[in-house]
C-alpha cells in the first residue's frame, strides 16, 4: 500500500503545483487566447490532483484540502520542474511541452494499472491531456519555426529546462514493487517513450536537442528536497485557508 500511496502523492503533487503555476498566467498571457488556454490547463491539473488526493483519502490519508493546503514543502513529492517560477512565456511553454508529453504517456500507461481506482481515473485524465499535448505541440512547432527571436528563446529555454525535465523520472524506492504488481510500468519505460515523443516534435522545428548523455537530471523533488521556490508558493496557496483551517470557506 505504501508503494501505491507514494505513486499517488507524486502524481497529485505534480498536477497541483503545475496547475497552480499555470493559473498564475491568468491576466498576464501574451495574448488573450493563451491566457485562456493556460487557465484551462490549470483547471484540469488542479482538478486531476483533487481526484488523486480523493483516492488517497479512500486509502486512509487526510482530506484533499488538508493534504494540499497544510503540508510544508519538504512533505511534497513533486518534481522540481513544476515548482520553478513561470518566468517568461518561452520557459512556461517548454515546461508545459516537456511535462505534458510525459504526463500523457504516463496516464496512458496507468490506464492498464492493476490498481483499479487509478486505472479508471487515468482513462479520464488521458482524455484531458490529449488537449494539453495538442496545445503544446502546436505552439512548439509554430514558435519553433517562426522568427529568429522565437527560435532563440525556445532553444535557450529548452536547454535550461531539460535537466529539470529529466527529474520527472526520478525513481522511487518502490519502483520494483510497482512494476511487479502491475501498478505502473516504471519510470525507465516512461522515460524511453518520452524521449522518442520529444524528439519527434523537436525534429519538426528549427530547435535541436543536446546529446541526452550529457544532460544531468536535477533530482530530489520526489524525496521532498525542493528549491527555494516551493515554500513561498505553498505559503501563498494556504494564506486564506490557514486563517482558520477548521472554518468552512
Amino acid at each position: 500500500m505504501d508503494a501505491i500511496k507514494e505513486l499517488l502523492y507524486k502524481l497529485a503533487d505534480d498536477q497541483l503545483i503545475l496547475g497552480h503555476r499555470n493559473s498564475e498566467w491568468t491576466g498576464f498571457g501574451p495574448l488573450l487566447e493563451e491566457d485562456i488556454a493556460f487557465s484551462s490547463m490549470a483547471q484540469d491539473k488542479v482538478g486531476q490532483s483533487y481526484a488523486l488526493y480523493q483516492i488517497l483519502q479512500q486509502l486512509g490519508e487526510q482530506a484533499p484540502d488538508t493534504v494540499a493546503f497544510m503540508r510544508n514543502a519538504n512533505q511534497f513529492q513533486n518534481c522540481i520542474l513544476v515548482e520553478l517560477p513561470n518566468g517568461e512565456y518561452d520557459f512556461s511553454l517548454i515546461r508545459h511541452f516537456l511535462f505534458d508529453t510525459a504526463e500523457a504517456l504516463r496516464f496512458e500507461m496507468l490506464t492498464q494499472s492493476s490498481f483499479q481506482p487509478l486505472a479508471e481515473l487515468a482513462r479520464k485524465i488521458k482524455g484531458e491531456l490529449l488537449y494539453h499535448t495538442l496545445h503544446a505541440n502546436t505552439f512548439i512547432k509554430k514558435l519553433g519555426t517562426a522568427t529568429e527571436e522565437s527560435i532563440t528563446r525556445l532553444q535557450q529555454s529548452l536547454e535550461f529546462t531539460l535537466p529539470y525535465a529529466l527529474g520527472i523520472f526520478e525513481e522511487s524506492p518502490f519502483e520494483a514493487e510497482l512494476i511487479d504488481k502491475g501498478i505502473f510500468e516504471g519510470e525507465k519505460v516512461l522515460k524511453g517513450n518520452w524521449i522518442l515523443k520529444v524528439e519527434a516534435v523537436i525534429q519538426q522545428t528549427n530547435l535541436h536537442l543536446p546529446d541526452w548523455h550529457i544532460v544531468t537530471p536535477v533530482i530530489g523533488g520526489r524525496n521532498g528536497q525542493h528549491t527555494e521556490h516551493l515554500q513561498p508558493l505553498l505559503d501563498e496557496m494556504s494564506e486564506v485557508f490557514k486563517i482558520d483551517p477548521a472554518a468552512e470557506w
Partner: protein
Amino acid sequence: MYGGGNTFEGIQTESLQEDPVKLAAFEARIDRGEKIEPVDWMPQLYRKQLIRMIEQHAHSEIIGALPEGTWITRAPGFKRKLALMAKVQDEVGHAQLLYSAAETLGKSREAMIDDLISGKSKYSNIFNYPAYTWADACFISWLVDAGAIVNQLANAKGSYGPYCRALERICAEESFHLKYGHHCVIYLATGTAQQRQMFQEAINRWWTPMMHFFGPADRISTHTQVLMKWKVKMSTNDDTRNQFLDMYIPKIWELGFTIPDEKLKKNQETGRWDYTEPDWEEFKRVINGDGPCNKERLEVRRIAEERGRWVRTALQSPKAAYIMPLA
C-alpha cells in the same frame, strides 16, 4: 462581470452631418426593434459611441481579472480554487468576445489595447480599488458581478447585433459567477466571527465604488438622449443603480450585514431607494487616473503586452492581411 458605468463624451446632436434619408431609415429600423449589423449603414456617432462602449466593457473584463486573479493562487480549498479559476477565465473570454464585437465596427484589438495602456480609453472605475482580502474577492464575485448583470441584461436589448449576441452569452456565464459569489459570501456570513467581520469590512470598503459603478447621477451625467433613442444606452445610471439596490440590498441585510449609509432606505412614496450621494468628485478623480490602483493596473497590462510581443509577432503570418470580423 464587469461592464458598467460607461462614460460618454458630451454629444452635440446638431452637428450630426448625416444623410437625413438614411438617418430616418436607420432610426425607423431601431424603432421597429431590428438589430443593426456590421455591414449596415449607421451614423458616425453611433459607430463611435458603440466602439467606445464595447471597448470600455472589454477593457473592464481584462482589468477586472487582475484584482480577482490575484486570489486564484490564494483561494481556500480545492472547490474555491477551481471555481475561481474558471470564473476569471470566463472574464478573459468575455474580453475576447467583446474585442471581436468592437472590431466589427472597424477598430482592431491591438489599437484598443494600445488605447487602454496609454490611458486614452477607460475601464470600469471599480477596478482601480484594491482587493485586500479574500472577502473583497467575494464581494467582487457576488456584488460587482450582480451590478454588471443589471447593466448587461439591459444592454443585451440594445440595437447593435454583435454586441447584443455577445452580451447574451456573457450573461449566461455571469449567472454562474453570481451563484459562485453568493455561495462564497454565505459561507463567510454563516462562518466564524472572523469570517463575518472580513465580509463586513469588505462591504464598508467597497460600498462607495459600488455606488459609483453605475456612473454619475442623472442630474450631472452627460446628455445621452440620442444614445438612448438609438438604443446604445438602454437605461439611465440612476435607474440601473436603483434596480441593483432593489435586488441586492434585501439580500445583504438578510445575511445580517450592514451598509455604511445611514440614509439608505426604500422610499415608499417614490418606490425608489434614498441614499447618500456618493462622492462624485472622487469618482472623477479616480476615473481620470488618480485612484489607488490605476497606475498598478495599467502597468501590469503594459508589462504583459510588452513581454508577449515576441509571441504575437511570431504567430502572425507576415503575408496575412488584417480582416475585420463581421459578427
